[in-house]
């Protein structure tokens, strides 16, 4: 059993390389329009530049959410392999169809008399007309100080790849932890999966919740902390699979979690918490007036930093991994490629650690904020008087 797990682990680490390799072989079908009046040097430079941009775009695209579940792409033939996902749009009524209608941005999807087109580059859906042109609207641009035309975005509630993965993860976590909970009915000693997860649960309780929130109040936050910890960790790990999933490296996901933390902190805040924001005890009154807006801003900045931290860490990890994998194919020298594959392997292990670390830090800081909200500062008042 252990051997199988170890084998799967190694496979999971190596596979991203293989999968991205199968979708490699890019770029040659890009047709140049204005090469004829360029000198050979300029042409070479442009080609290199284009190549660079293409690679950058290729990697970034793999970190983005998408409307279909792509397994791999054969770029030489321009074919995508995978399966379509349901698209749900709101544009004067609900529109429901499968994402295969978009044809990866090449086709215009029609639904209930409206036309929609997908921009494959940023994964967003825009209104279009029957001929497949994007509809434009005039928008005031603050920086240019003039009206610019912009494509009209549609409210998009599609079951995208990230939503699907999250749904699967919710189901997986539900069954996993329910089975663990049930295993305790047979006896108090942990068995099976509980043997692995119980120490982690106890760690979250004893090392994260208790010291940061305090013995008195930690119990009511345990459910949220445990859920957040395992949710982030599992989704981080799902990003380590070769399917190119990047849920936690998506700003919408981290924003949802950070908002939850903010709401819980705000609504469970005790009198002392608000007092420390609006009327900081122990400082002279002019300072209190200065501190109040800063503290108030701090309550928003804290969850914002939570959001950005998780997002940036996971996104950066994926981009670095993607770049390294691409770099392994950028060399004709076998040794250089081999070195980059080794480096990718190493980075994968680091990312595995980061997956846990980021879940830990998110939970830890959340617990810290909850602790500030729930705490009753007897000691500080004593010090202030």
């Amino acid at each position, binding site marked *: 059993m252990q051997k199988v797990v170890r084998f799967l682990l190694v496979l999971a680490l190596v596979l991203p390389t293989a999968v991205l390799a199968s979708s490699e072989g890019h770029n040659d079908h890009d047709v140049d329009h204005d090469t004829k009046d360029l000198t050979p040097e300029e042409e070479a430079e442009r080609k290199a530049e284009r190549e660079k941009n293409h690679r950058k775009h290729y990697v970034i695209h793999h970190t983005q959410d998408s409307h279909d579940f792509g397994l791999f792409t054969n770029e030489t033939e321009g074919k995508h392999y995978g399966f379509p996902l349901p698209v749900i749009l709101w544009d004067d009524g609900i529109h429901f169809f499968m994402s295969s209608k978009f044809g990866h941005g090449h086709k215009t999807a029609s639904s209930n008399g409206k036309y929609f087109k997908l921009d494959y580059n940023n994964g967003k859906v825009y209104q279009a007309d029957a001929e497949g042109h994007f509809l434009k609207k005039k928008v005031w641009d603050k920086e240019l100080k003039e009206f610019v035309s912009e494509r009209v975005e549609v409210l998009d509630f599609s079951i*995208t790849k990230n939503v699907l993965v999250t749904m699967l993860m919710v189901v997986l976590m539900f069954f996993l*932890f329910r089975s663990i909970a049930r295993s305790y009915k047979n006896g108090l000693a942990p068995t099976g999966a509980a043997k692995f997860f119980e120490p982690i649960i106890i760690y979250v309780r004893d090392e994260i919740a208790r010291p940061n929130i305090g013995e008195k109040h930690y119990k009511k936050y345990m459910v949220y902390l445990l859920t957040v910890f395992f949710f982030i960790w599992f989704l981080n790990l799902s990003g380590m699979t070769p399917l190119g999933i990047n849920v936690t490296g998506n700003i*919408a996901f981290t924003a949802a979690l950070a908002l939850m933390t903010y709401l819980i902190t705000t609504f469970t805040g005790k009198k002392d918490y608000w007092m420390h924001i609006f009327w900081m005890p122990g400082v002279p009154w002019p300072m209190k007036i200065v501190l109040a807006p800063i503290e108030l801003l701090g309550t928003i900045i804290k969850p914002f930093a939570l959001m950005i931290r998780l997002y940036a860490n996971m996104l950066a990890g994926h981009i670095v991994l993607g770049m390294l994998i691409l770099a392994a194919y950028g060399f004709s020298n076998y040794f250089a490629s081999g070195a980059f594959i080794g480096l990718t392997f190493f980075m994968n292990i680091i990312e595995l650690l980061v997956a846990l670390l980021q879940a830990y830090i998110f939970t830890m800081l959340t617990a810290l904020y909850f602790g500030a909200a729930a705490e009753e500062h007897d000691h500080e008042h004593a010090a202030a008087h």
Partner: protein
Amino acid sequence: MGLLEEFSIGLFFWQSVLFLALLFLLRKFAWKPILDSVNEREQKISDSLELAEKTKEEMESLKASNENLLKEARAERDAMIKDAKETASRMVAEAKDKAKEEGNKMLASAKDSINAEKAAAISELKTQVAAFSIEIAEKVVRGELSSADKQKALADKLVEDINMN
């Protein structure tokens, strides 16, 4: 790649819904029972430990009381031995005293009898000496008293002697 540009309201909506669903599902079906049973077990373990500690303490006190008992017994034994020894020595002393007394008594009675014997002997000696004296005196007197003058002179002399004595 601006933050706002990438932000998708739909994804945000779905993530929030899914997360809340997970939160409530896990709270009901997982965390509550898991934390409860973990707490229960910890309670059990700490109770058992406490019990063990208590038992150990009891054992210790039992051991201590045993030791006390043993000590007492030993002291009692020692006292008994000491008592016996004392009694024995007292008896010996008493016996000695008695013997001494008896001896003394015997000695005294012996002395008394010796004295009595001695007195008797002396008195006998005295009587015998007196008898001898009388005999001698008779013989002397017979010689002396062969004439009347001599008888008279002797009588006078005797009387004088006796008076002088």
